[in-house]
């Protein structure tokens, strides 16, 4: 069920990407969708009543959560940040050229 809520968040994000007219909002939608997928990945690796996967010298820790999705999500977070930065740079240049963030007015190419 918690997976399902996560997918709802994903849908909100993708809806934002596809249906918003403002470029910045499209980027916001992308970030939200990325958050949702990262969260889903970590949820998949969670163990009930688990412990963080960091050992301590005091003794063995039982029920550690799956460290692999965490490592992957770390990668995914950085990739997401990087993509966002590039898109923001493009958006700022577009604003410099067109003076607007509205996609309806940035439409010289036919598609």
């Amino acid at each position: 069920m918690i997976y399902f809520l996560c997918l709802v968040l994903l849908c909100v994000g993708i809806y934002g990407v596809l249906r918003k007219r403002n470029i910045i909002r499209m980027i916001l939608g992308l970030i939200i969708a990325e958050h949702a997928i990262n969260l889903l990945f970590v949820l998949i690796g969670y163990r009930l009543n688990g412990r963080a996967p960091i050992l301590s010298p005091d003794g063995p820790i039982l029920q550690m959560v799956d460290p692999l999705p965490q490592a992957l999500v770390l990668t995914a977070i950085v990739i997401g940040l990087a993509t966002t930065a590039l898109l923001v740079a493009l958006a700022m240049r577009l604003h410099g050229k067109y003076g607007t963030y509205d996609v309806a007015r940035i439409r010289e190419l036919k598609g």
Partner: protein
Amino acid sequence: MVELYILLILMIIGAVGALEMKDLLSSVVALGAVGLGLSFTFLVLKAPDLAITQLAVEILSVIILIRATLHKDLPEVPARGWSGGTAAGLGFAVVFLGVAFLCIPDLPPFGEPLLKVAGHYLEAGLKETGAANLVTSVILDYRAFDTLGEATVLFTVVMGVLAVMRAVGRKERGKADE
């Protein structure tokens, strides 16, 4: 696990807010709230590495986004209203969520992952890599090649931003660009 549900619902509300608020700056702030919520959720899910990284990354992306929106908050164009495209988008979302609802039971139940590969990391990670933080041992030893790729993505973006931000792209402007 109630707190997880509460956090997720708050995040969804924040996300809808970020997309629907009138003012761009408030949207960005709402997005920051969503990221903060995600960071807390990671903490609840026992992923402190991710919580730290997410928090720092969220601050940075909010700074960048605010830089992009500041002084540029032009009067918002009226929303498109309930056009056919919106209906199609909602229809797609409903179908997607419906399919997902049917499919999710095929995943292992929440809280009981299979731990096929990760089981080995948990057992032998300290012995084999010497790192107490198993996430670090995964990203920098077992799966270091991924991390090289990740560092390269960041490098690529830096090069890309530098390339995109050049004031003049072409030396001479012929008729090529009509």
